[in-house]
């Protein structure tokens, strides 16, 4: 998601009473300065991270000086949570259930505030917020509550004759203290912030959640609500931006779960390597939509719009990024799209209440820059209107943008939708395969053979045929990327597994001792071992009796 989110300007946030702005310096490449809104008191932080150095300028209102969350604070937080984990309380079924119920209660009782925060950060329409965030979080909680005892139960494993007599099982144990770093686009949602927390709690871990600073209202609310509804000795929220995240990353975690851009993903993984910490990276990528000419076009287009503009205005990791269709079919597709967009968002989409806005000025600029590039601006078929004051960009469709432009190389993450055309639909496979592996790939077609070929020839985190984004609401499917779109998966039982270690447990009895295992070694022992390995009971008996079939 947000391939650009480390992109310099993002770490600027307006948070309650104090304003903070940062500047990242990539010493070799660029050096950007940002105007700092309030400059009463300034602090400078220096921190180095693998390949780049960031320097942060903090501007703090004098009357609201907050203690900076530095490495020391991170270390003491870690110590506290580790103590809590080591006490064993988070491992108990009762604790897990109580916390999950706490989350459920929190959402039930504070729904209004949550919706309000989302409106503040993204002016998200209520129905959309409810659909994509609140109800999915509740659903994840419910299913975890219902399934937990089943998930926690050790799974029996078969044993072989080599280890007879024995019994074996696989036990899920919590990893320890885990860090969840979540993105801004669905700051509350099951998907990206509270959903992994649910998985981590269900698996019995102590948790630190770092919500995104780019959605300050949601971040602030989460911090407040977690304190009120959950066990603070084991579950914490740390608010902040780059310096806070860096301080957190210095600690030794038992798991880091990160949702965001592949660029930051690399930094997270390098930091994790120092402590051999396993990671899950939920990234994004350019999710393609291939549209065949034999489809029910109206339904297809509505489903594409639902995934693109009706879901956080394209600012989602699984949002359709570009469409590939045939040259002949493209005009028809565009016509229907224009018509359906009007049905959904009215004649003037800039005035529609039914669409989220762009999250920040920085992202607004990034998107308009994508549009203003040479060879791109003249490819706009419709849309392109923008309003910087309200951070709105109209749904914009472009046709046959050259492949070497920024908009076709970077993840768009916004309301722009390029359509590429090919002579034959099969050529779309090459287009998709020439780019990094996406988090999701979509196909609209009635052709069964094409379904098969699409599924077999294209690698993506997940695939959805004849719809968009719905697959991530299916808790029986693993949600996660591959290649540039990340590693590890979650949702439902997969979340539980992501935050668990699968401990192999083998119980042996004292009987069934075979001397062939032990020295002194003889040729007969070698033969016996070979036969044992073959698993052929008759041969084993013969070998034990000193006979041989050879």
């Amino acid at each position: 998601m947000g391939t650009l989110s480390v992109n310099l300007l993002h770490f600027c946030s307006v948070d309650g009473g104090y304003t903070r702005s940062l500047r990242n310096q990539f010493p070799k490449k660029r050096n950007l300065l940002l105007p700092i809104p309030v400059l009463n008191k300034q602090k400078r932080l220096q921190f180095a991270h693998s390949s780049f150095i960031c320097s942060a300028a903090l501007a703090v209102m004098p009357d609201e000086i907050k203690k900076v969350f530095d490495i020391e604070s991170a270390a003491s937080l870690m110590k506290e949570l580790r103590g809590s984990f080591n006490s064993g309380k988070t491992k108990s079924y009762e604790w897990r259930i109580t916390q999950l119920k706490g989350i459920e209660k929190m959402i039930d009782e504070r729904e209004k505030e949550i919706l309000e925060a989302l409106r503040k950060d993204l002016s998200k329409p209520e129905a959309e917020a409810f659909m994509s965030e609140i109800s999915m979080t509740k659903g994840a909680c419910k299913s975890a509550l219902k399934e937990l005892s089943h998930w926690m139960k050790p799974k029996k494993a078969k044993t072989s004759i080599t280890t007879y007599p024995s019994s074996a099982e696989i036990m899920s144990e919590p990893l320890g203290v885990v860090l969840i770093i979540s993105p801004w686009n669905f700051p509350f949602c099951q998907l990206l912030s509270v959903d992994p927390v649910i998985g981590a709690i269900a698996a019995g871990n102590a948790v630190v959640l770092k919500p995104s600073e780019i959605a300050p209202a949601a971040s602030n609310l989460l911090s407040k609500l977690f304190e009120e509804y959950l066990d603070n000795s084991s579950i914490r929220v740390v608010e902040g931006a780059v310096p806070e995240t860096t301080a957190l990353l210095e600690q030794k975690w038992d798991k880091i779960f990160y949702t965001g851009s592949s660029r930051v993903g690399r930094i997270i993984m390098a930091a994790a390597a120092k402590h051999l910490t396993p990671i899950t990276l939920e990234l994004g990528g350019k999710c393609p939509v291939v549209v065949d000419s034999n489809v029910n076009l109206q339904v297809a287009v509505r489903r594409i719009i639902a995934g693109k503009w009706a879901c956080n205005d394209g600012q989602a990791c699984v949002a359709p990024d570009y469409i590939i269709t045939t040259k002949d079919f493209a005009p028809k597709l565009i016509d229907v799209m224009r018509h359906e967009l009007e049905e959904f968002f009215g004649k003037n989409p800039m005035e529609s209440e039914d669409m989220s806005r762009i999250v920040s000025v920085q992202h607004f600029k990034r998107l308009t820059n994508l549009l203003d590039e040479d060879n791109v601006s003249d490819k706009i078929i419709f849309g392109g209107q923008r309003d910087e004051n309200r951070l709105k960009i109209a749904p914009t469709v472009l046709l046959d943008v050259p492949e070497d432009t920024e908009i076709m190389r970077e993840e768009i993450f916004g309301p722009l939708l390029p359509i590429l055309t090919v002579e034959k639909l099969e050529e779309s496979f090459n287009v998709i395969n020439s780019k990094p592996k996406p988090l999701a790939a979509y196909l609209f077609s009635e052709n069964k053979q094409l379904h098969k070929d699409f599924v077999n020839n294209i690698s993506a985190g997940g695939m959805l045929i004849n719809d968009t984004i719905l697959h991530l609401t299916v808790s029986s499917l693993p949600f996660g990327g591959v290649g540039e779109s990340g590693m590890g998966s979650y949702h439902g039982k997969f979340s539980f597994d992501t935050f668990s270690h699968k401990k192999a447990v083998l119980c042996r009895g004292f009987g069934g001792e075979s001397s062939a295992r032990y020295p002194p070694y003889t040729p007969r022992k070698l033969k016996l071992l070979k036969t044992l390995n073959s698993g052929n009971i008759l041969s084993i008996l013969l070998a034990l009796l000193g006979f041989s079939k050879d």
Partner: protein
Amino acid sequence: MGSGVNGMEGRGLDESLAELRQTFRSGKTRTASWRKSQLKALLRLIHENEDKIFEALKHDLGKHAVEAYRDELGVVEKSANNSLSCLDEWMAPKKSKLPLLFFPASAQVLPEPLGLVLILTSWNFPISMALDPVIGAISAGNSVVLKPSEQAPACSSLLAHTIPLYLDSKAIKVIEGGKEISQQLLEQKWDKIFFTGSSSVARIVMSAAAKHLTPVTLELGGKCPVIYDHLSSPSDTEVAVKRIVGGKWGPCNGQACIGVDYVLVEEKYASQAIEMLKKTIKKFYGENPEQLQNISRIVNEHHFQRLRNLIKDPLVADSIVHGGLIDEEKLFIEPTILLDPPLDADIMTEEIFGPLLPIITLKNIEESIEFINSRPKPLALYAFTKNEAFKRRILSETSSGSVTFNDIMVQFLCDTLPFGGVGESGFGSYHGKYSFDNFSHGKAVLQRYFFLELEPRFPPWNDFKMNFIRLAYKFDYLGLILLLLGLSRD
């Protein structure tokens, strides 16, 4: 030892990797028939070269043929056979359940190969630790580069020379070499790196992988403890001691990631345990410590010195109660038992990986839980006990890659159990189906149809749609029907 890509002298690394990628892209490695043919070829390789492999293992580690078969060839054979018989089942997509709300639709998880994978292996089991993951990578349909450990040169060379004769060299290559080659390899972009070795090198491997967002599996080690509870039956005690001796000095003379590192025992039973250990060592390996049979030697000078330094500390040397004989020329160290060496000495803070066995005494055997928890998580934990309550405490209060009750190392042979570490002992697991999964991406595939559209999914938003979504997420089908009929329960 020469380094480079075997069988392609004069061709650069880039070219070899390009060929491997090309092969993967061609789709050939994805077919079940290719995977099976390679697994069969690997079995043929093992059968037809058995003697050469025994010889190479003898040369590198002084391994006896029976030990070599038990820990190396047998393991590979068992894995390959298991993969062959299960492959079709593993490759089949798994259906996932869908809520009624999605009707009509179907969902499945389809395993797909990751692409080009790198397998970096260790020297202690130079055949099985190399070929076992290769079996997983092939089963999952990947193209593979195997870099055997340069510290077992005869085995490395044997693999490099025989693999191209049996396996498809357009898709599977062996690259030999030391640190420099490893570094060159790590700079490349892989779709997976599978590493077996030490935690210090693992950090380097993972940092390199981060640059390309390459997923890694790290198979490391750690100090694997044995909890030795008092067993009332003498015959059980005898079996337990046999298993400890066999597990400590049997597999590669203690140079094994899941080998026994130290034993925890109650004070009052320590001397009895030591006596029995000594007796069993003599029975297994012979009376004369200068001419022990059936036991591997130390891999090389470097590790020999490392082990020697572990017992140099006078306080540690004083704690030796058995063995201690060292033969530098033969790189041999006698099975050595130490009683309560200082806990802050290197021998108790670092993985021993050799024939030294500290016995640590505790007032009460239940203290072993705290003892283990105050150290990094081991790859394996062994406990000999018949006390069921204690077993349950061990399981729920300690953390380790695996737990085995009443035996040593046999968990490695169970293809149904995931083999892998946690914390300092690594992450990611393999063996059997877990190997296949390790080298696969489980692709979620959801299939929808065009009829039956749920209008409330789409804007413009209104109260009806909001109510609809609320009920839908609760899977409240009755409520939905009432809503659609214009009725309401409130």
